[in-house]
């Protein structure tokens, strides 16, 4: 019976294929089309970060999902636990789906068409897309999942602690960020950060986001357990 209800939550999310699977790609492909046209008129290769729209979209989905579906699910007597796991499966599936398409398009762009015949670097970018196709797939997947749970975590704070809680969190983050960057500048540590990135591959960096993602997941779960629709 337990798995049954978790499947019910997955089904709930999959009723919304538009938001999870279609809309993000409409956004990305629009950006791609614009860049493709521009690249026709350029002599040099065009490097663009248009693909970031997909990642940002998943952050937004993470933020929105909880407000959209949590009150509904709780109202239909779903356990908070089943909601969490069902959402995890749905988000994991959607992340994998987009990561696979990203990787395929990167392959077509870089290996097959040499920048869509017009020197456009949209899906395959230096440093970010280094490594085998499998590595690229893992990188995209983990980044998308990380952004989803960043958004999910933010709304989780709102659900659990309300407007005031989210406000407090935002201010705390702002202060910490300011202090952090001040110290970094003061101690001239920014160079070290750049060195770190140069010494590590994108893949290694992405693996470091995994523990962050897991922490966001665990904190979201802990907050949902005490959240009231």
């Amino acid at each position, binding site marked *: 019976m337990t798995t049954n209800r978790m499947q019910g939550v997955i*089904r709930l999310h999959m*009723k919304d294929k538009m938001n999870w699977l279609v809309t993000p790609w409409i956004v990305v492909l629009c950006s791609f089309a614009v860049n493709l046209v521009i690249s026709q008129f350029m002599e040099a290769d065009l490097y663009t970060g248009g693909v970031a729209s997909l990642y940002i979209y998943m952050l937004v989905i993470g933020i929105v999902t909880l407000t959209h579906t949590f009150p509904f699910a709780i109202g239909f007597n779903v356990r908070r636990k089943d909601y969490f796991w069902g959402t995890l499966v749905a988000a994991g599936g959607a992340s994998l789906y987009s990561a696979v398409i990203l990787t395929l398009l990167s392959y077509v762009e870089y290996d097959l068409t040499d920048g869509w015949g017009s020197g456009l670097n949209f899906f395959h970018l230096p440093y970010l897309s280094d490594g085998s196709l499998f590595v690229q797939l893992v990188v995209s997947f983990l980044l998308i999942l990380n952004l989803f749970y960043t958004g999910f975590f933010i709304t989780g704070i709102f659900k659990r602690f309300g407007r005031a809680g989210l406000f407090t969190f935002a201010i705390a983050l702002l202060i910490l960020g300011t202090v952090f960057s001040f110290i970094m500048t003061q101690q001239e540590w920014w160079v070290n950060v750049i060195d770190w990135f140069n010494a590590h591959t994108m893949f290694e960096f992405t693996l470091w986001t995994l523990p962050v993602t897991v922490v966001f997941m665990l904190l979201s779960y802990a907050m949902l357990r005490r959240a009231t629709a």
Partner: protein
Amino acid sequence: MSTIVKVDRLTKSYKDIDAVKDVSFTLEENKIYGMLGRNGAGKTTIMHLLTAQIFPTGGDIQVFGEAPYENDRVLSRICFIKESQKYPTTFAVRDVLEVAAGLFPKWDREFAYSLVEDFRLPLKRKMTKLSRGMLSAVGIIVGLASRAPLTIFDEPYLGLDAVARSLFYDRLLEDYAEHPRTIVLSTHLIDEVSRMLEHVILIDGGKLLLDEEAEQLQGRAYTVVGSSSKVESFAAGKRVLARESMGGLTTVTVMGGAGSDDRKQALTLGLEMAPVTLQQLVVHLTGGKPEHKEAKAQ
């Protein structure tokens, strides 16, 4: 009959107010309950507590013998339909029904779609585009088709016309006869549902005012009508809940069962006696100023 809900000294406090205070009651299997009371009395809060959608400040809740919080054995057997239920904005009526089918183990698909036809609901229309009455109808369909052993309807028919409401009562009774379950009905339209209710729980100001079989409630009070002077002499020394005068006629509602002495007295005075309806009783019991309520309830 076995007890399926046991609420013991349940309390829910917010910063400045006790929404529910020291409420204890039990619900038995396969009965229709009316949970009645004024707006803000605490009925909805109690129902949210029963389904662990909010958390109690004090007291104990057992549903199907266990605590409901994060307990799928309990939660999957309850269907709680409330007026304020939120739906995902992208959902159409059909989506809600299909998701409900996956969440309620005893869901009857055929029954659900026959109800959709009864209520003339457009399956493909988005929930956000439904009228208030149609939105209520979706809730009613989910509540009925879920066949949950404990089905709770909280103000289920806001915006529904009289035809749709009687359709709801008919389908509810028909399906209840074939698939007995425990039903809790909370509503302001007490007269309409009073014939269905087997047991009444009356909540006022967060407290339990009455917890009685509907039949017994019939004898809790009666009205007497007649010329003012005669009615007044009859009412002397009795607990009068309400008094209404029009011209030379007075109607009083008297608390307590009418004994044979009372009947004789009324007869000799030429007064007309009638049992008070459930709705009148509830209005009398909960209509006064806050200080009066408790005194009346004694």
